């Protein structure tokens, strides 16, 4: 998911809201009717994240500079945020069921820190759960657009602050003293003459038999003891001991392992199965039924399901893109490119086109879901970023009322955009309904690459006109295979379309593009436009939507412009950047990364900048493209150029957890290295050729830099920026720029190794290959 690319200078902006004498901010909420203290919060639209319009700059503000996608999500969330609540248990612990998905991004840790801070409670007394699908929250239950911390930060602080205030007031009334004389620390209220009471001892008395409106003051930043300091993940111990439960680890009674034999083209169907009885008779197999996109097989072990897949003899129906291959898709994209508005200035024009191959957003945990469907109800367990839409769609598919379908959100082993879609949960429901039994469905690794979600192939054309040391115009025409936004953001857009500064007949994708893309440079007349080709691949976001590709293309052209102007890339960016925060991170990266140092031939530095989600990042990398590095022998893998060093400088607005932010920056870098150098899908006759991690070359240890430094700038705002996707675009661009400088050739097709197929493709049938048996020959 993407968001705006501007980071307005917020250092002079104060958040909206009423302030008391000490600069404290007063907030409102509700003590809910409950036996122990429970606080719900209401929050006012927009105040969580104020956004000033830009001052006049040589380039006119593009739409996203005035109103960005995050603002849109905040606006849609505002009327319903009031329904989230913090509960204080009798053992003194606080519980908050966050209406978001945890897929590795560290959201639960950050939310626990926020609760601990405002409630003056130790971290180990805060429990964060993941809320089931809650239809009453409407679109305030979507994890995406790097928006979780931006939209949840103030509501969660508010609920925790009111909880604390209510406990203090209760103790004050009990002791007959003024609340102002009481203090809180470590889950204990302390009063005059040494009196103390634990939160747990106060929670029943603090509860209310009816819902009442109350207010409290937020802690000023100067008193923060938890927020802004490094904290390790709350689930780290469970992870390293193997206790953390993912979907595949859950025990639901009689939900037996289930897999699907699939057709040899994307979204293919089943015409007939010729040997159902034989498959049903195989060892360990309990059920076999044809479903929409394959033949579902349920058994005692996943291994026996894989055995059975080898035996399926079926006649398959066509898929949705059967005739398509890389070359046919590229031809369609080129035919759909929108024209440039400004004619070329002959010798003072740069025209460039960049092509980005299909890429897989598959996480490491294979797609999975548990479903238990009976004639009158259904229960689903899955990692879902938009559980409400899943609940609505699955209810419709099963022919059940929405309230008869319970959807539990469980911890996911990564997502990167995949879990915005509930197709796997819906397929589990279909299978469970048809078999009349609970199922634990897992897609195989090969299913994930071949039938899973892909980031669409796209082209980015750029034309720049320049004269006498100035850039007169910058035009970018991005053309992409259609991105599927069917996961429900559309409801927000529809609901709030009247309030949008962009209006009229723009399609949803064009709206997202316009809200998320803009150039950070003073390049005169600037236009960036999107067109889409409606091909029915299974597409989706992939740790952002457009920015990694758009920014990579733009920054490569910036380096070419710098060369035309006879300027070093660093100096050129300093001269043309219009964003102070970007300039600050750029300068820091140059200093820490020692820009311009002497480098051996065949190696080079590259630098790029990017602002989005109200954050700003500069990335400086060093790359080694010498033959001895490029041609390192790696068994069943690709070596190629190696990024040897990376410096990432990030301005996150307000940093909640430096440790978590640093982790997001490191992860984004590794994604970027893969996108620039090694990882892509090759489409041939309606199917990706890739089928395992030794085909789809995501970054491995032999590709990763040995020296990675993350620098977090001092806070420039009271509000956190988004972080989950922030690092990918500038790192992708920096690696591409470094490669161009090291080799003297500007790459135009990504990843750079796409033209060479570095593996022997697995067969298309059976759709899941048999597991090896020689594992004991490879011990170490």
């Amino acid at each position: 998911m993407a968001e705006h690319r501007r980071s307005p200078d917020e250092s002079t902006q104060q958040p909206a809201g009423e302030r008391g004498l000490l600069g404290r901010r007063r907030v409102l909420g509700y003590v809910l009717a409950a036996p122990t203290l429970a606080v719900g919060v209401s929050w006012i639209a927009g105040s969580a994240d104020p956004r000033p319009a830009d001052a006049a700059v040589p380039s006119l503000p593009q739409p996203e500079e005035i109103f960005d996608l995050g603002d849109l999500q905040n606006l849609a969330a505002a009327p319903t945020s009031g329904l989230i609540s913090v509960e204080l248990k009798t053992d003194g612990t606080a519980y908050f069921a966050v209406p978001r998905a945890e897929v590795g991004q560290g959201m639960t840790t950050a939310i626990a820190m926020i609760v601990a801070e405002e409630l003056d409670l130790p971290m180990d007394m805060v429990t964060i759960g993941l809320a089931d699908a809650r239809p009453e929250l409407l679109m305030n239950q979507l994890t995406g657009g790097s928006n979780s911390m931006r939209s949840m930060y103030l509501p969660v602080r508010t609920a925790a602050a009111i909880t604390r205030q209510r406990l203090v007031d209760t103790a004050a009334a009990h002791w007959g003293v003024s609340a102002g004389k009481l203090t809180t620390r470590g889950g204990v209220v302390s009063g005059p003459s040494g009196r103390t009471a634990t939160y747990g001892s106060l929670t029943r008395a603090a509860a209310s038999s009816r819902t009442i409106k109350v207010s409290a003051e937020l802690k000023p930043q100067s008193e923060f003891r938890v927020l802004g300091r490094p904290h390790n993940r709350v689930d780290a111990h469970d992870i390293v001991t193997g206790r953390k439960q993912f979907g595949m680890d859950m025990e639901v009674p009689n939900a037996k392992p289930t897999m699907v034999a699939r057709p040899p083209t994307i979204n293919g169907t089943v015409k007939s199965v010729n040997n159902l009885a034989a498959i049903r008779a195989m060892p360990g197999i309990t059920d076999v039924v044809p479903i929409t996109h394959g033949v579902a097989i349920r058994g005692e072990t996943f291994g026996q399901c894989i055995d059975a897949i080898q035996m399926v003899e079926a006649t398959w129906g066509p898929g949705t893109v059967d005739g398509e291959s890389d070359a046919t898709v590229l031809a369609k994209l080129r035919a759909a490119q929108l024209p440039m508005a400004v004619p070329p200035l002959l010798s003072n024009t740069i025209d460039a086109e960049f092509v980005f191959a299909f890429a897989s957003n598959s996480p490491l945990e294979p797609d999975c879901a548990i479903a238990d469907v009976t004639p009158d109800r259904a229960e689903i367990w899955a990692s879902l970023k938009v559980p409400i839409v899943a609940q609505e769609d699955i209810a419709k598919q099963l022919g059940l009322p929405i309230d008869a379908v319970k959807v539990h959100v469980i911890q996911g082993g990564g997502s990167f955009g995949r879990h915005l879609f509930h197709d796997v949960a819906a397929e589990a429901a279909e299978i469970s309904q048809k078999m009349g039994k609970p199922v634990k469905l897992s897609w195989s690794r090969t299913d994930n690459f071949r039938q899973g979600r892909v980031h669409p192939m796209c082209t980015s054309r750029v034309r720049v006109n320049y004269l006498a040391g100035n850039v007169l115009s910058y035009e970018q025409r991005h053309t992409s295979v259609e991105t599927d936004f069917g996961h429900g953001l559309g409801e927000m857009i529809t609901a709030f379309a009247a309030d949008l500064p962009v209006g009229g007949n723009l399609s949803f994708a064009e709206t997202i593009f316009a809200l998320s893309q803009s150039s950070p440079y003073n390049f005169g007349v600037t236009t960036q436009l999107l067109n889409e080709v409606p091909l029915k691949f299974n597409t989706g976001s992939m740790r952002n939507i457009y920015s990694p590709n758009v920014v990579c293309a733009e920054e490569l052209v910036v380096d070419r412009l710098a060369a035309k102007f006879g300027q070093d890339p660093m100096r050129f960016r300093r001269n043309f950047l219009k964003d102070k925060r970007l300039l600050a991170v750029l300068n820091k990266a140059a200093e820490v990364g020692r820009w311009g140092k002497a480098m051996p031939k065949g190696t080079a530095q590259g630098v790029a900048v990017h602002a989005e989600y109200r954050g700003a990042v500069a990335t400086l990398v060093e790359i080694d493209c010498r033959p001895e590095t490029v041609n390192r022998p790696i068994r069943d893998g690709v070596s190629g150029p190696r990024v040897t060093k990376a410096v990432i400088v990030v301005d996150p607005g307000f940093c909640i957890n430096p440790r978590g932010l640093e982790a997001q920056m490191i992860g984004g870098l590794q994604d970027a290295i893969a996108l620039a150098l090694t990882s892509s899908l090759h489409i041939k006759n309606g199917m990706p050729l890739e089928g395992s991690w030794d085909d789809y070359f995501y970054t491995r240890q032999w590709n990763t830099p040995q020296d990675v430094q993350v620098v977090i700038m001092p806070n420039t705002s009271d509000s956190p920026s988004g972080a989950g996707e922030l690092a990918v675009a500038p790192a992708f661009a920096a690696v591409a720029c470094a490669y161009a400088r090291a080799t003297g050739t500007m790459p135009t097709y990504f990843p750079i190794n796409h033209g060479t197929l570095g593996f022997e493709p697995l067969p298309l049938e059976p759709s899941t290959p048999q597991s090896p048996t020689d594992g004991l020959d490879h011990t170490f």
Partner: protein
Amino acid sequence: MATHTFTLNGKQISVEAEGNVRLLWVLRDLLGVTGPKYGCALEVCRSCTSHINGKAFNPCSVQVKDIEPDDEITTIEGLPATVGKDLHPMQQAWLDNDVSQCGYCQPGQIMAAVAKVKQAHAEGHEITDADLDELRNICRCGTYSRIREAIKAGAQDM
């Protein structure tokens, strides 16, 4: 169906299974030992990495009939007991460096790291960057930098 006997995390166990079922499914689906993760069942992603007689291997690619009664299988759940502590030094290093993100690959990463360090020590040298480059375990969250730091730190205490 046959009965298969071996040592799992220090205990002698017996399990009924078809002989061709890969050990990963015997562990996960029949015995409920879920620390080793299913990531590919192709001996590629290495998220199921465990130890057989102290050496790293991938149970997704070994038939249960090939496990001998005197074989000792150790999964992440049994790793601390191999050093008689609540946490193996490598697990502690993982905590100290806050390596994990989603966590799915990390049990396999830790088991591979322990074996790699033992291999280096057996060859009479400390773990090197070249050794680390040989690790094939996928981390799709991209925690590689912290994995490298944690392995070097954990090796100091092994």
